[in-house]
């Protein structure tokens, strides 16, 4: 909370009186991504302080989790990050599996890679599209949703739902992939690869977009770490950290045998890693980094997401092959009333928005004694206040949008 400046004994001078305004941005505001409420202190267009207020979407999900069995809580995880519900399911499943020391069959492992990476693409497409909306460009949103719809169609075939899937569960998944699904998935990937350059043209390389995002909301690597930022927000600041590489073994072993890059600029050179991935028949060609862009600004955060989508495509392509090569059990769900040992388990996974951690304490009953979630968006949002000082009003959507927060995950 910004302290009152009335008794501030700084130099007093005469000036034309323009009022400082205290403005409520949200919770009903088109660009606060749900029900985020920002209280702005502004002098004309210049915003001096921003204070985020939370809690408008609080649904006691964690407390509910302490009254349900592990599998019953899966639908509640769907409603946390509702744009990447598959990855939420995965996080909870993994932590329960860690608690009960369950080992997933190999087919299920590849299935999970396919599904979670598809979820990542779907989520990043929304992030990309809504970021366009935040900056006043409507078309990328529709383009993003067109591709997302294709993914949702595939998800619908898998589990019958388009938003809240409850598909991945502790023990594996509720069902195996339907026959012929992988071919459709391949078809989607080929189509999607053709669309990515379009999206780059619409936003990444658009000069107005660059001028709106490059050099805005610059966050140093130090600051990103201090505030506990994770995911693309952290990597956008040049911190080489991705739980798919650096996470717990139980999580990283899911990606054993996969080849992909962590998208993160080298802080020394400012260059992104050279990829040897064949994309579109040619070697993957990143759009050039604009001159104005500074490592850690809004543009880099956006760019990291755009490139991560390509890496997800790459992972899915490999995963489909591996999935088809293996046969047998995909990992049947655990029992609905599976007893949880009196231990604690905590695990973080790399969700699209950052590290999503779940914490569970069992007490021998099938209902966990304690359930907590560590939200990536929550930590990412915490940098809003320091980043939004002395900026213009129009930069607030640009900065908040680049953090890509989902209020369902923050408030839980």
């Amino acid at each position, binding site marked *: 909370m910004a*302290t009152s*400046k009335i008794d*501030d*004994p*700084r*130099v*007093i*001078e*005469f*000036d*034309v*009186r*323009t*009022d400082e*305004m205290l403005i409520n941005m949200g919770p009903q505001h088109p660009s606060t991504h749900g029900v985020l409420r920002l209280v702005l202190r502004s002098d004309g267009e210049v915003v001096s302080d921003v204070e985020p207020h939370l809690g408008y979407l609080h649904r006691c999900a964690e407390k509910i989790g302490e009254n349900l069995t592990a599998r019953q809580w899966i639908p509640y995880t769907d409603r946390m990050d509702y744009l990447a519900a598959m990855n939420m399911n995965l996080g909870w499943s993994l932590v329960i599996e860690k608690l009960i020391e369950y080992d997933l069959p190999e087919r299920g492992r590849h299935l999970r890679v396919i599904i979670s990476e598809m979820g990542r693409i779907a989520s990043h497409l929304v992030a990309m599209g809504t970021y366009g909306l935040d900056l006043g460009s409507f078309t990328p949103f529709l383009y993003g949703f067109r591709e997302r719809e294709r993914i949702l169609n595939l998800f619908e075939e898998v589990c019958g739902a388009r938003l809240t899937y409850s598909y991945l569960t502790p023990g594996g998944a509720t069902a195996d992939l339907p026959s012929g699904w992988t071919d459709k998935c391949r078809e989607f990937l080929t189509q999607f690869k053709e669309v990515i350059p379009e999206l780059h043209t619409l936003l990444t390389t658009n000069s107005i977009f660059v001028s709106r995002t490059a050099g805005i909301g610059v966050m140093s690597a130090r600051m990103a770490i201090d505030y506990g930022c994770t995911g693309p927000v952290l990597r956008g600041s040049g911190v080489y950290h991705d739980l798919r590489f650096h996470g717990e073994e139980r999580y990283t072993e899911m990606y054993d045998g996969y080849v992909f890059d962590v998208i993160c600029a080298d802080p020394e050179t400012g260059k992104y890693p050279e990829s040897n991935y064949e994309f579109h028949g040619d070697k993957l060609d990143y759009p050039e980094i604009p001159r104005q862009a500074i490592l850690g600004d809004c543009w880099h955060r956006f760019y990291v997401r755009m490139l991560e989508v390509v890496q997800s495509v790459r992972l899915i392509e490999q995963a489909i092959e591996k999935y088809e090569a293996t046969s047998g059990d995909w990992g049947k769900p655990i029992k609905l009333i599976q007893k949880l040992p*009196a231990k*604690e388990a905590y695990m973080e996974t790399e969700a699209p928005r950052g590290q999503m951690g779940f914490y569970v*304490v069992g*007490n021998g009953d099938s209902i966990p*004694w*304690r359930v907590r979630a560590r939200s990536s968006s929550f930590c990412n949002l915490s940098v809003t206040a320091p980043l939004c000082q002395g900026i213009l009003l129009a930069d607030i959507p640009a900065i908040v949008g680049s953090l890509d927060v989902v209020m369902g995950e923050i408030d839980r």
Partner: protein
Amino acid sequence: MDLIAVAWPYWHQFFFVLFAATAIGFGFGVLLSKNVVRMAFYLVLSLGSTAGLFFLAGAEFVGAMQLMIYVGGTMVLLIFGVMLTAQKDFINMDTHTQDWILATIVGGSLLMVLLFGAFGSEDWKTPQDITDAEVQATKEATPLGLALTGIRVDTLGESTDAVAEGKSGYLMPFIIVSIHLLVVLIGAAYMARTKKLSHATDDKSSRAKLMLFKMEHEEEQLEEEQYVVTHRAKSALNPLDSENED
């Protein structure tokens, strides 16, 4: 048909009365209104009606000028009004009796100067011999418009020496009005000025003050932190805690 043709004297007479009435009416509106923004709005309407008079007289250029400069200028006034009157005490301006008296004296003397300037030039005192028929036939007031911009239209045929000698049409009254507006603007800015915190802390004394200020408030902050620490509830029920104690 004759009735239609004769019943009303002239159609532009009607519009002249209309525009003149709106101009004067909204002029009084400016005087009597208490809200700054409404004043500016009435002023816009008054000036717009004046532009209408110019158009009616066929002086399109002067009319468009009137719209562009005066109405556009009032827009800036309006913006100032909006920006400066965000505070409650400025939204409604109550005028006291002494203000009225003072304003009448100042405004009246300015009006006197204005009238004197307007009727001062010899050639304009006596109306020229223009028949009604001629006035009707031309329907134009370009000479008037030119006179307002400082050209002696009545002496155009002779030479331009008159302009050089300073007898330049209505320019003088025009400038008086402009100065009047300027005075009003300065007055508005003066009324609206305030003590404002400066963010420039370059000189040493203010820096010292700033440091003192921070030091004073440091204790408060520490107290706050302390409060949070002491009041945080310890979770005694946690089985893991009890495990550790055992």
